[in-house]
């Protein structure tokens, strides 16, 4: 029999050495030489004799135990390992089946309690009630342990390398969901084993309370009430643990499922496109965009009209020519065609500033028309453009601030070795 105080003292004294070792023991066993290396790394000023002394004391106190059939390898005593895990809040997820087994045992205990009460055996009744109480504490401890373990599972998944495939990254989450959360949902269901067990024990305890009033007290009412309260606490705790597990793992599980769905969808779409062309992807699935910029610049003063529409925007009065009146003054100019403008622009190359050139050409042109030509000519493929600094330009009705372009013909550009990169308009 090892004195508990000595074990606790050794754990406290060597905590700085034991704590890092726990992580290694979580992964597996260690040989004597590996243990010596680990200890030497954490206690730089120690001699080999000191390390031997520490290891000897751990083995004597049963903190370290030899692995069965491998006397040169050691592991932490399972009880000590659990205790250290509790202290380090490093929990391993238990099995849902363990909880179910505890629940079945609780049901059986409820039966024994009922029997003891029926034969009026107060000693047995008190013993069974204590057992029930301890078993409920076991379940509570297990639920708390599992909850910590679930948090760790979620954290590991979230913090692992983003570059490894999601299926691998979330493998533990998916396994935990299938092996723990899903069966727990079944267990804690309204008609699941958990609820049934709790209800059965609760019924026995409540019936006993009322029977004691009638037949006389075998045990203290307080003891029954305390046990009843603990049963209810266990029920709430199970529901909370389950809810917490769902909150933690469901988003990750959904992410993994979504990932699979996205990959499968992409593969399906590519297969369809390979066989039937680009139109094979159903149009309803396609995102729609509004029309691109060229339309925007081509249409008349749209931004202005829209933006100020609600702020008492006043459109200019439209003046239509009247058929019965002879036209006086100069005849209106015919609209310029794209070809005409392109030719004029080509003739004027190289052009230091497109917008200034347009203003020279059309000093009385409408702003929207000038901007249309600016957009149209600057995007013409046979010209090379070079973005200029932002400056203001006066049209006959507006002040326009924009970054104009210098235009060169493709041939000029080919001759220049230090051509500037193109910029998006």
């Amino acid at each position: 029999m090892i004195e508990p105080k000595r074990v606790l003292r050794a754990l406290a004294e060597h905590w700085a050495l034991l704590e890092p070792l726990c992580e290694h023991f979580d992964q597996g066993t260690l040989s004597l030489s590996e243990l010596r290396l680990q200890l030497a790394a954490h206690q730089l000023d120690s001699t080999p004799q000191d390390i031997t002394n520490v290891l000897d004391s751990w083995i004597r106190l049963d903190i370290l135990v030899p692995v069965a059939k491998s006397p040169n390898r050691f592991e932490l005593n399972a009880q000590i390992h659990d205790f250290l895990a509790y202290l380090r809040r490093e929990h391993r997820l238990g099995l849902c089946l363990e909880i179910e087994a505890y629940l079945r045992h609780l049901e059986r205990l409820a039966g024994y309690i009922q029997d003891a009460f029926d034969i009026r055996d107060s000693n047995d009744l008190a013993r069974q009630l204590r057992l029930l109480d301890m078993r409920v504490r076991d379940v509570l401890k297990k639920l708390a342990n599992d909850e910590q373990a679930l948090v760790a599972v979620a954290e590991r998944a979230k913090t692992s390398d983003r570059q490894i495939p999601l299926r691998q990254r979330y493998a533990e989450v998916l396994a935990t969901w299938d092996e723990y959360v899903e069966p727990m949902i079944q267990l804690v269901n309204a008609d699941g084993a958990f609820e049934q067990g709790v209800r059965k024990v609760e019924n026995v305890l409540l019936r006993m309370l009322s029977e004691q009033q009638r037949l006389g007290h075998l045990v203290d009412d307080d003891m029954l009430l305390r046990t009843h309260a603990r049963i209810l606490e266990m029920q709430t705790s199970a529901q909370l643990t389950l809810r917490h597990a769902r909150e933690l793992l469901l988003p990750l599980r959904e992410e993994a499922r979504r990932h699979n769905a996205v990959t499968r969808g992409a593969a399906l779409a590519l297969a369809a496109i390979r066989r039937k062309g680009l139109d094979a992807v159903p149009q309803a699935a396609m995102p729609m965009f509004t029309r691109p910029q060229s339309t925007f610049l081509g249409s008349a003063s749209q931004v202005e009209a829209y933006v100020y529409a609600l702020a008492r925007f006043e459109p200019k009065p439209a003046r239509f020519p009247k058929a019965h009146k002879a036209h006086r003054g100069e005849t209106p100019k015919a609209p310029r065609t794209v070809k005409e403008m392109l030719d004029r622009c080509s003739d004027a190359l190289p052009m230091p500033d497109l917008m200034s050139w347009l203003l020279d050409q059309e000093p009385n042109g409408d702003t929207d028309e000038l901007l249309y030509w600016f957009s149209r000519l600057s995007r013409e493929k046979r010209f090379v453009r070079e973005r200029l600094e932002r400056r203001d330009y006066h049209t006959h009705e507006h002040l326009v601030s924009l970054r104009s372009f210098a235009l060169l013909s493709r041939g000029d550009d080919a001759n220049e070795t230090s051509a500037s990169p193109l910029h998006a308009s």
Partner: protein
Amino acid sequence: MHLDLSELSQLAPIFRELFKGYHVSRRDPELYAQLSNFQDAYRALFKALGFELVCDTRGFYYFVPDTAITSAQVNKTAQRLALFTFIIVEHLADQGRDPIAVLDGGSLGRDELPSLLEKYRDLFVQAEVTTQDELEEKIMRRMTQLGFASEDNGVYRFLPPMHRFLDVCLSVQQDRDLAASLHSILPLPTPVLIDDEAEVEEEDEEAALARAIAAEQQEMDA
């Protein structure tokens, strides 16, 4: 609903960007903050003007085009970008990388594009993308223009609006008809398309002009 235009200090740039088809996300902090703070006001104002502002809870805003005009049409850009998303997802999954981690805030180097183009040449051809330049111009530049990605020093970072394309993957996955069609010989219903690409428009414009000039000359000759 009372609208105070003075509160909507970013109205003009927000409208300009959204109208271009741009998706505003946290990448544009000022616009995003304005839209988040006055989401209802912006939505009401744009609705009154005939634009539907979508506020996606995954952190981005965009305009949905008028359904009357576009319900039967899928634009070519959307098809190209969707194809690119499918390819990236499969490519990354093949490499054992996590596609969602990359497309949801992750990044892709420009140097990865040539191998991607080589590996999926048969599919890119269908989207009229045959060279690295075309891939960058027709897909990557489009993605950055529409706010799906940002480019910095040869690295493309994918932004939250990419969820729109991940949603396409999900809806394809749920589309039993499509899965079934892969095992049948019947053709799929073909959507009606319009090409709203700028370059296509320009070509059309040129062609129309040439036709008009030819007609004019014929008239003059007559």
